[in-house]
């Protein structure tokens, strides 16, 4: 970890218990590893994107950073403090510095609370209710570009884009250093998606924020992230600078993801890499390289040996036969 690093994750493992007593008695697998041996660094003032399909473990990873999921093994270093195993009470000041935004723009807002109450909540939770909360609410609404009278609205009276702005306002209420955003543009119209991304970019520049963005939308990644990591079955298969990865993806899975974007041009010739079969179950991880069951470059060796992490330029990846080298 260098002095530049705000967040440093080393060899992180997170697992879930599945099945109840019957499954255990039957001797079936009772644990799935949703995050498996993940390491990365996030530098101050930059944006890091986690990309992957559903079930790849990206949301679990984000929730673990926030202490909502217990760490099984590995370390999380945030502003020089180790977070793994901290109690809720010890996590509280950390959560103030590292707020999280959830996927559903409306659903992540408490339905019976007005926008005013929602935006006051961070102050109340962190013992700052002596501040002029009305003034704070007005300030936050202005920061995210919503009119003042929105304070009296309820979540069901907001459009997706407006609800997302309220979510952003709540996240930045207490001058955080790192915002963790899970699918910040999910469910939004294209014209609104741009607004939200512009807002996040603005806030990052103005407040000197760092961001960790989770998304399955590669176009979003390109517009917002400095560095990115591609997750598959709970592991990072490739991570590096966003532009470098978009220009020359090395891992076959990254290449497949990049080519899997429906193109808004009916005449564009596709050099598409179609992935056969569905994502394997975490209960039955493939042997060797876990991507070999869907990989078109796979050779005999891939189903036996797990590839060791390798470095190509600034990019780290785990693959026996990387592309474009």
């Amino acid at each position, binding site marked *: 970890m260098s002095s530049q690093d705000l967040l440093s994750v080393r060899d992180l493992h997170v697992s879930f218990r599945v099945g109840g007593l019957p499954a255990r008695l039957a001797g079936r697998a009772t644990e799935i590893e949703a995050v498996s041996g993940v390491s990365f660094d996030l530098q101050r003032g930059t944006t890091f994107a986690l990309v992957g*399909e*559903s079930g790849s473990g990206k949301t679990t990873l984000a929730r673990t950073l926030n202490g909502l999921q217990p760490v099984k093994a590995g370390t999380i270093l945030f502003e020089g403090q180790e977070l793994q195993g901290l109690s809720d009470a010890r996590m509280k000041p950390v959560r103030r510095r590292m707020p999280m935004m959830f996927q559903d723009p409306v659903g992540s807002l408490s339905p019976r609370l007005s926008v005013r109450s929602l935006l006051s909540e961070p102050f109340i939770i962190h013992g700052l209710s002596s501040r002029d909360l009305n003034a704070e609410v007005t300030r936050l609404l202005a920061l995210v570009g919503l009119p003042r009278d929105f304070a009296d609205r309820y979540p069901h009276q907001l*459009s*997706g884009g407006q609800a997302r702005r309220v979510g952003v306002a709540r996240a930045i209420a207490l001058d955080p250093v790192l915002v963790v955003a899970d699918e910040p543009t999910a469910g939004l*119209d*294209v*014209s*609104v*998606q*741009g*607004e939200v*991304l*512009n807002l996040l*970019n603005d806030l990052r520049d103005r407040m000197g924020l760092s961001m960790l963005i989770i998304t*399955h*939308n*590669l*176009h*979003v990644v*390109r*517009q917002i992230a400095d560095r990115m990591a591609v997750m598959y079955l709970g592991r990072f298969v490739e991570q590096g600078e966003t*532009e470098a990865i978009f220009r020359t993806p090395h891992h076959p899975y990254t290449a*497949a*993801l990049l080519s*899997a*974007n*429906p*193109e*808004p*041009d*009916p*005449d564009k010739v596709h050099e*598409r890499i*179609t*992935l056969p*079969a*569905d*994502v394997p179950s975490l209960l039955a991880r493939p042997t060797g390289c876990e991507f070999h069951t869907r990989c078109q470059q796979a050779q005999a060796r891939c189903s036996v040996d797990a590839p060791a992490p390798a470095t190509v330029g600034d990019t780290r990846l785990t693959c026996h036969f990387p592309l474009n080298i």
Partner: protein
Amino acid sequence: MTVLAVKNLSVAFHTESGRLEALKDVSFKVPANRSVGVVGESGCGKSTLINAILGLLADNGEISAGEIVFEGDKDLTRLDAAAMRNLRGQRIATVFQDPMGALNPVLSVGRQMRDIQYRSGLSKRDKDARSVAMLRKVRIPDPESRLAQFPHEFSGGMKQRIAIAMALMMEPALLIADEPTTALDATLEVATIELLKDLQREIGCSVLFISHHLGVIAELCDEMIVMYAGEVVESGTTREIFHDARHPYTQKLLACDPARLSRRVPRLPTIAGTLPDLRRRPSGCVFQPRCDRADAQCLDVPPGASIGGSHIARCWHADIPLGVSA
């Protein structure tokens, strides 16, 4: 031949705060063996359109004008409930965003596929054989043994493919697909689009494909209509619209799609302003309050300007191509 012709359709809802015109003067055709895309953002009237076609409008909604002609001779706005029920699932099939809407969680997939064929008069064995063939078409591995399985034993992508198989089972004339790939991951999304394309060709049905995703429409559809605030603002072949969009809304919508940007830009394009209140439609052009080309002329209802061929844009300034600022 035209499978579906929607002519000057208007749908209004009576709400506590007044009458809301959800669809206004919507016209388009779905020719046989073709895929027509409907693109638009939330509030554009996509769902109302589907419900109007299927005869499933909410109690407070009414078709205030126009007709929906199916297979040349049936006006769906005049059919009674029983006749509509006979069409749905047999001649007009639907696939929705959430496949669980089509699947019963407590019945096996085989049982459900058999139930759809209740009119076929086939034996149980023949019905199962057809189910297996259909599952194979949608690329479910090992379909014979999977007939006995329940919906929760399949992954999300497989469930959607099974829903597609069930929809196409009775070889309908028209498949209405409402955002069927939106909830899927990118790799599954393209696979599902390609599957739909192949099946459509094989079965020879028409597809009405509703999506907010321009890329998906571009890949799948031959023709498309662009909807805004309950009106069709532009229609034509997919190629015409993607290469030579003439309505300012279509142009802006295309510009907003981040997939069109091949590098990082400092500010992503957006569409300023908000959707008008459908209880108080703006006078003249419905997009005029948000349009930077709007002038005095736009306070009158714009004509459907023909750009050439089937390409029509409902705009007073449809002569300005994309990339030329006003």
